């Protein structure tokens, strides 16, 4: 990497030359930072490394995950590793998904001015403002669908002029949708009953008592289910 091209970036205002073509996270470590905050799964799933940057000559702030975004020349960056967002408690079973419960628990969604700043801040390219509008209408399915890829990094909430905590609203909507509109399949209930009645204990007793050669033979004889088109 040392032989390749270098890119100049600014970490919290200070200039560093880092190898071209690496992520912001790797670049910060290259520069000498050792993370405690601001690094988590390092694969784009946990939301620990939300990063804000501006490029030379631009006035606009941009948003990214440090572990996924590559460095660019003249990038001025800082991390926002924590979001002080409140989350009201609720008992899922006692909520009525037909009423507008999202508005009840998160009344600030009514303050949405449709500025779309949240959407622009989302490193997952989620239509954040659209799901807040769906939340206002009480459309749980739409919120669940639009917000599904949310990693809860909190960048939306940090940008919102109405102080909406989008990702908590979406989490509540998905859980409510999950329990109310996406019922458990029948075969799961059947299996649970069988397990409660101990229907498989004898088979398992027998397998646990089977010796190694017996197990190997049984394993080799397994019938592998063929994937049907819709089943897979």
């Amino acid at each position, binding site marked *: *990497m040392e032989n*390749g*091209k270098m890119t100049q970036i600014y970490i919290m205002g200070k200039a560093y030359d880092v190898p*071209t*073509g*690496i*992520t912001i996270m790797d670049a910060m470590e*290259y520069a000498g930072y*050792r*993370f*405690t*905050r601001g*690094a*988590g*799964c*390092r*694969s*784009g*799933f*946990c939301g*620990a490394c939300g990063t804000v940057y501006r490029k030379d000559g631009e006035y606009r702030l941009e948003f990214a995950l440090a572990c996924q*975004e*590559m460095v660019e020349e003249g990038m001025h960056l800082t991390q926002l590793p924590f979001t002080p967002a409140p*989350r009201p*408690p609720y008992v*899922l079973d006692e909520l009525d998904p037909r009423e507008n419960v999202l508005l009840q628990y998160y009344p600030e969604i009514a303050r949405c001015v449709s500025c779309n700043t949240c959407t622009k801040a989302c490193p*997952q*390219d989620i239509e954040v403002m659209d799901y807040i509008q769906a939340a206002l209408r009480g459309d749980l399915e739409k919120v669940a669908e639009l917000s*599904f*890829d949310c*990693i809860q990094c909190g960048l939306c909430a940090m940008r919102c002029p109405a102080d909406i905590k989008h990702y908590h609203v979406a*989490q509540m909507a*998905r*859980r409510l949708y*999950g*329990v109310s509109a*996406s*019922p*458990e*399949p029948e*075969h*799961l209930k*059947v*299996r*649970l009953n069988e*397990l409660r009645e101990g229907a498989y204990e004898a088979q*398992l007793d027998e*397998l*646990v008592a089977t010796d190694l050669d017996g*197990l*190997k033979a049984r*394993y080799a004889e*397994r*019938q*592998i*289910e063929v*994937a049907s088109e*819709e*089943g*897979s």
Partner: protein
Amino acid sequence: MSGQDGTKLIGGYPAYMRESIEKVVATRARRLQEGPPAAMTAEQREQVLSEWHPDYKADKKRDLAVGPSKGARMPHEVADLFEAYPLVEPGAIDLSKPDLDVQVLILGGGGAASVAALFAREEGIPTEDILMVTKLRHGDCNSIMAQGGIQAADRENDSPAIHYLDVLGGGHYTNKPELVRALVSDGPMLVDWHEKLGAIYDKADGQYLEAHGGGTSRMRMHSAKDYTGMELMRVIRDEVRNVGIPVIEFAPAVELLLDEAGHAAGAILYNLETEEYMVVRANATVLATGGFGRLHIQGYPTTNHYGATADGLIMAYRAGARVIDMDSVQYHPTGVAYPAAILGQLATEKLRNQGAEPVNADGESFVYPLEPRDVESAAIIRECYGNDRGVLTPSEIRGVWLDTPMIDAIHGSGTLKKRLAAMWMMWNRHGIDITKDPALVFPTLHYQNGGVEIDAEGRTDVPGLFAGGEVGGGVHGKNRLMGNSLLDYNVFGRRAGLSAAAWAKAHRPGTLGMQHVEAYANELKSAGIAPDRKAPMILPDYRREAVLARRLDVL
């Protein structure tokens, strides 16, 4: 878009890699018609493993010199931490006035820890008497990164017994039977629990969309797009927040405490930001600290989160808990081999269970796509280094193609983007559209197959110390199947939480002590181990040498 050294890229790939992609495209229709190569026989599996799997290289491991599992074989990188001195000198801290006093202390912030916390509460421990402490944030963990799915034998043509046989065969019959039995028996119940918490699994017409994983004989992989781990973790974490279980973040445990009876009695925590220590007394302790991926065994890149440094293993071992199957490491067959910026990150097995097959530089398939992971990995390594039919990247890493456009060719246009949204986004960020072009992959360090030995109730050898999730050993034997890690953290997180709660109601620790740590350090000294190595590691250090060499320690 240009690459690392400024070379021009076409659809994310340099021109010379495009030549190989053209061969993959040229054979695709035929490969789709013919179907994948046949699965290996037991003998073929054994051969490719012994010749090519990294676990089978004898010089990369050694026998542990000290402790309750003295003589246990493990990779040098892991043994180096077991054979290391404590960070906190016994006697250096006053343990007589604990800063916090709880009934159930849970070490960890991932799936197993969160499940244990919720079930300790279910078992009647008051919310405020449970404490989760974690090194990073709540949810910064491997559990949240799992993509492909969770196994549970819930369909009519399936049963816990069939699942049992798949797990045991995949693990080379080395798993502890009572643990596998618990794993397969609890699966459907925990999927049901997720449903009741509001998790959204993939369904069609009211039925789960269930698929195969490597080494399964029935389709029992439940998924939530390719965000399965994230969907489960964020729902479970949200419930922990909802009921108000206290969580202290950025405060890893650095040593376990025992009382005079040798029972687990709490832990010493370290505040990563203020550098203070904190003493916690607890009636029962749950170890849910995850695995060791960040030790980069044999120099492999890893899919693991930043904190996967084996801390829990080290602490439990010093306290007297034996370890099992520590010689076995899971290399996920398909880590990202290109582009270098995301080297080693996970390309989920779901890509293969939806139809993508591994293909060599000449465009030919060479392995059944859903072998158990160790076999699939060994076959890919053999193709690159034994048969020399890999593709060399600009960073001089070899890989094989994962022919992702096959997914839409089989299931219809739009399927990949819908079912594998995270994967599509990951490569698209680097200019590669995996619906049009294949992705280059090579095995990556993924999972600690073994760990602290537990029984079916999540008990370790140390009374009052329980374990669940990746830190626990015995469930998967020498090789874990896809979809059994999410299942493991749920099954054994729950069992550890319930057992810890029951223990905590009946036991109150005596005087907190570190005599076990002192005794362990003495054993290290007697074995002639030099005092410079300290553990737990807490975090890896990725700063470059040039910076570290000029570092002044003045503040």
